[in-house]
C-alpha cells in the first residue's frame, strides 16, 4: 500500500506526496502534459527536442546540472507520444535546490541560440544512433504511418523526418514553451524522505508565484476505424527476416486495457508465454518473439514482433503467429495461465514500488489519467479479468481488418 497525499496550488499545479523514511533520498518528478501528439505535423520532434533544451539553463540559472550535481543530485527525463517527464533524485537535506531548479525552468527558459544549435545536433545523433545505425532500427518509423493515417501517433517521438528538427527556430521553441509548459499543465510528485508539510511549504514557496498560463484544450483528429488489412514489405541487408504485426486498441482508460495488457502477457510474458513456448521452443520458427501494448493515452496498439530463424518462410511464420493468437479466442486451457499472469502483475507492482523514482513517476502518470489511487488498485484490476473477457477482447481486436503487418525481409545471401 502506497500512502500519499494530494494538493494543488492556485496556479493549477497538482502535487502528490508519498513519504518513505527508509531512504535518505527524495525523488522529484515533474510531468508536463505535452508529448509528440501535440506537435504540428509540419514540425514534428519538437516535444522531444524541447526536453533537451530544458537542460540548457533557465531565466535565473545558467546551468541546470551543475548546482544539482553540487548537492549530490542526479536527473534524467523522457518524452513519449503523450507526456514529457523530468525526474531528480536528491539527498533529502538538499531538496530545496531541486525546487529552485525545477521552478525556475518552469518560470522561463533561457532561450539561447547556442543551446538550440547544439541540442539539434545531439538529437540528430540520437536519431542516427537509435534508428539508422541499428539493424531493424527503422521498422518502428515505418510501422506508425502504416497503422495511423490521421492521428499524431502516426509519427514517432523523435520526429517524422529529421529535417523538421534541422529547421527548428527560436521563435517556434518559445511558442512551444509558453503554450505547454505551465503550472496548470504540470503534475509534481515527491516521494521519499519528505513530509507532506515540508512538500507543501516548499512547493508554495517556489512554484506558487508562477502564473497560470493559457493552455489550449487538446483537439486531436480521431483515427478512423481501420477496415482493411494493411501490409508493407521492406527489403534490407539484415541478418535475418523479421515480422511486425500491430492491432489498434482502445484508449488507456478504457475497460479493455487491462484485458489486452493481460493478453500480451499470456502471449509473451516471460519464458513461458505462448508465443515463446510454441514458436521459439517447439516449432523453432523464431529466434525471439515479443508482444506488448503501447499503453498510450489515446487509442494505442498491440505490437507483436519477432525475428525468424534462417530458412523459415515468412508467410508460414505469420500463420503460426495467427494460430497462437487465435487459440486465445476459444479460451481453452487458459485458467492456470491467467492465474500465472495475474500473480506476475502483482509481483511486478511490488518490485516496481521498491523504487522511489518509479513511485513518483507512477503517481504523476495516474494523476494525469485522473486517478492517482490507481497506484494501489491496478493489480486488482488485473485480478478482475475473466476468461470470458479474454475471449471477447481477443475476438474483437485480433481481426485482420484491424491489423497492419510489416515483412522486414533479409536480402542477405548465405555464405
Amino acid at each position: 500500500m502506497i500512502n500519499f497525499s494530494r494538493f494543488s496550488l492556485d496556479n493549477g499545479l497538482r502535487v502528490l506526496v508519498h513519504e518513505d523514511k527508509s531512504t535518505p533520498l527524495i525523488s522529484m518528478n515533474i510531468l508536463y502534459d505535452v508529448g509528440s501528439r501535440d506537435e504540428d505535423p509540419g514540425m514534428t520532434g519538437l516535444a522531444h527536442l524541447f526536453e533537451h533544451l530544458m537542460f540548457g539553463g533557465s531565466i535565473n540559472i545558467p546551468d541546470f546540472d551543475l548546482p544539482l550535481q553540487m548537492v549530490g543530485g542526479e536527473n534524467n527525463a523522457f518524452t513519449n507520444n503523450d507526456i514529457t517527464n523530468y525526474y531528480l533524485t536528491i539527498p533529502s537535506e538538499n531538496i530545496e535546490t531541486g525546487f529552485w531548479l525545477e521552478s525556475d525552468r518552469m518560470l522561463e527558459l533561457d532561450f539561447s541560440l547556442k543551446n538550440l544549435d547544439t541540442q539539434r545536433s545531439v538529437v540528430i545523433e540520437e536519431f542516427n544512433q537509435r534508428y539508422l545505425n541499428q539493424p531493424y532500427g527503422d521498422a518502428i518509423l515505418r510501422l506508425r504511418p502504416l497503422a495511423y493515417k490521421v492521428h499524431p501517433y502516426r509519427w514517432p517521438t523523435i520526429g517524422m523526418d529529421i529535417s523538421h528538427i534541422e529547421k527548428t527556430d527560436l521563435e517556434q521553441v518559445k511558442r512551444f514553451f509558453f503554450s505547454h509548459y505551465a503550472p496548470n499543465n504540470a503534475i509534481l510528485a515527491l516521494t521519499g524522505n519528505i513530509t507532506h508539510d515540508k512538500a507543501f511549504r516548499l512547493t508554495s514557496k517556489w512554484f506558487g508565484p508562477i502564473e497560470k498560463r493559457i493552455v489550449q484544450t487538446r483537439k486531436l483528429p480521431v483515427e478512423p476505424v481501420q477496415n482493411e488489412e494493411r501490409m508493407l514489405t521492406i527489403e534490407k541487408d539484415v541478418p535475418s527476416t523479421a515480422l511486425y504485426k500491430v492491432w489498434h486498441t482502445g484508449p488507456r482508460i478504457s475497460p479493455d486495457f487491462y484485458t489486452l495488457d493481460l493478453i500480451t502477457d499470456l502471449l509473451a510474458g516471460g519464458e513461458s508465454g505462448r508465443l515463446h513456448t510454441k514458436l521459439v521452443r517447439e516449432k523453432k520458427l523464431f529466434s525471439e518473439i515479443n508482444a506488448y501494448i503501447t499503453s498510450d493515452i489515446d487509442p494505442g496498439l498491440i505490437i507483436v514482433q519477432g525475428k525468424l530463424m534462417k530458412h523459415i518462410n515468412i508467410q508460414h511464420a505469420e500463420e503460426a503467429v495467427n494460430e497462437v493468437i487465435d487459440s486465445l479466442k476459444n479460451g481453452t486451457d487458459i485458467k492456470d495461465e491467467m492465474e500465472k499472469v495475474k500473480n506476475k502483475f502483482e509481483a511486478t507492482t511490488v518490485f516496481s514500488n521498491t523504487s522511489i523514482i518509479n513511485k513518483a513517476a507512477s503517481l504523476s502518470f495516474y494523476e494525469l489519467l485522473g486517478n492517482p489511487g490507481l497506484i494501489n488498485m491496478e493489480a486488482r484490476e488485473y485480478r478482475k479479468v475473466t476468461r470470458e473477457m479474454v475471449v471477447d477482447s481477443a475476438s474483437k481486436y485480433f481481426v485482420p481488418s484491424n491489423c497492419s503487418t510489416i515483412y522486414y525481409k533479409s536480402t542477405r545471401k548465405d555464405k
Partner: protein
Amino acid sequence: MESLQRVQPPVFPLEKVVIPEATSFRLNNGAPVFLIEAGTEEIIRLEFTFKAGQVKEYLPMLASTTNMMLSEGSQNYTSEELNRILDYYGAFLNMSAEKDRAGIVVFLLNKHIEKVLELSREILFRPVFPEAELNSLMKKRLSWYLVNREKVQNLAMDKFFESVFGKQHPYGHQLIEQDFNNLNPALLTDFHTKNYTPENMAVIVSGKIPEKTIELLNQYFGDISSKKINSEESKDILKGENRKKIHIDKSGTVQSAIRIGSATINKRHPDYPGLKILDLLLGGYFGSRLMKNIREEKGYTYGISSSVSSLNLTGYKVISTEVSRKNCRNALDEIYKEIQLLQREPVKKSELDVVRNYMAGEMLRMFDGPFALAESFKSAWEFGLDNSYYFRLAEKIKTIEPDEITLLAQTYYNIDELYEVTVGSK
C-alpha cells in the same frame, strides 16, 4: 511582482553514508551465506554466485552456455515446467555469466520462498542439459550474434577486449561462427560438475528476510556435496596485442563507434579510489569533461562516457562513444586533448567540489534499498574486500587534491599505451 529571490538555497553537507553490515554464516556444507536486511516490502533478492565465468572455460561460450542451459531442464522438471512454475509464483529469474563469475539472481515475494528455493536447487545442482534444447539454444544464439555483429558498438567493444587482453585469453576471445558448433551436453555437464560446486558458491540474500531463511537454505543447499574435481583457471596469459590503433571498416554506417582505453589496476590496488574519481571527472557523469566538450559544446554525439572496471585478474578503463562519421577524427582529437589537459593542468577547486558532492550523492544511491545494497556488497566482496573499501572511497572523495589527480592522470592515462578502436565506414 515576484518577491521571491530566485537564488540557490543553502547547500548542506551530506549525511555520512550508512552501510548496513551483512551478517554471514555457513551452510552445513561450508558454503558462505550473506544476509543484508533492508527495505519495506515483503520481498527478497536471492543471488547464487559461482566462480564459473569465462575465465574458467576451455572452449569459447562454455561458461555462458552452461549458465543459460541451467533452466532448460533438470532431474525433476522439464524446462517448460521450470519456467512456468517460476512465472506462476511471480518470481523473476536472471541468469548471468560474466568474465569471472556466473550464477543466478531471483527476485521473489517472501511468501513463495520455499518453492523458489526448491526450484533454484533444481536449476543450479540438478540440470540435465538436454541435447535438443542445447541445439536450439545455439541456433538462437547464432542468430542473436549475427544481429549484434551488425552494430558498430558491439564490434568495437569485442575488438577492444581482444586487443587489450589478447586473442587467446578468455577475457579477450572474440566469438566466430564456428564456435557455435563446438558444444555438446557432455562438455556442459563437465563444466557444470567442476564449477557449480558448493566450494565455489556464495549466497547473498537481501530484503525483508524471512526468519526461516537460514533453515530453508540449509534444507535445500546444505547437504549438497561436490566431487571435488579441481577446475583450473585459464593458463593463457593476459597480454595485449601489439597494434594499438585498429580500424574496422563497416560500410553503410552513419555513425562510427570509438573505444579508447587499456588494462589497468583493479579494486585491490590502493590507487583505485583515486582513479575512480579521475574517471568520473573525465567521462563518468553528465557533467564530465568529455560530455561537456563532445556532446554539449560540439554536438558530435548523443552520449560519451568513460568507465573503470575491475576484473579478478586485472582491471580496464574505456572511453566509449558513437559519433557521426564525419566527426570521428575530431572526436578522437578532442578525447586525447581532454586526457592531456588532465595530465598538464591541475583541476580547479570548483570543478573538484562538484565531483566530490556528486560522488557523495552517488554513494547514497549505491546503498539505497535492498537491491542496490546487495550489488554493492558483492562488488567489494568478490575482490576479498569489505565495507572498508567504501569507507576508503568516501574518504578519498572528501580529501583528494588536484595534484593527486594530475599525477593519477599521468600514471594511468599514458596516451602511448592506450588502445584506440574505431568502427565505421571510411
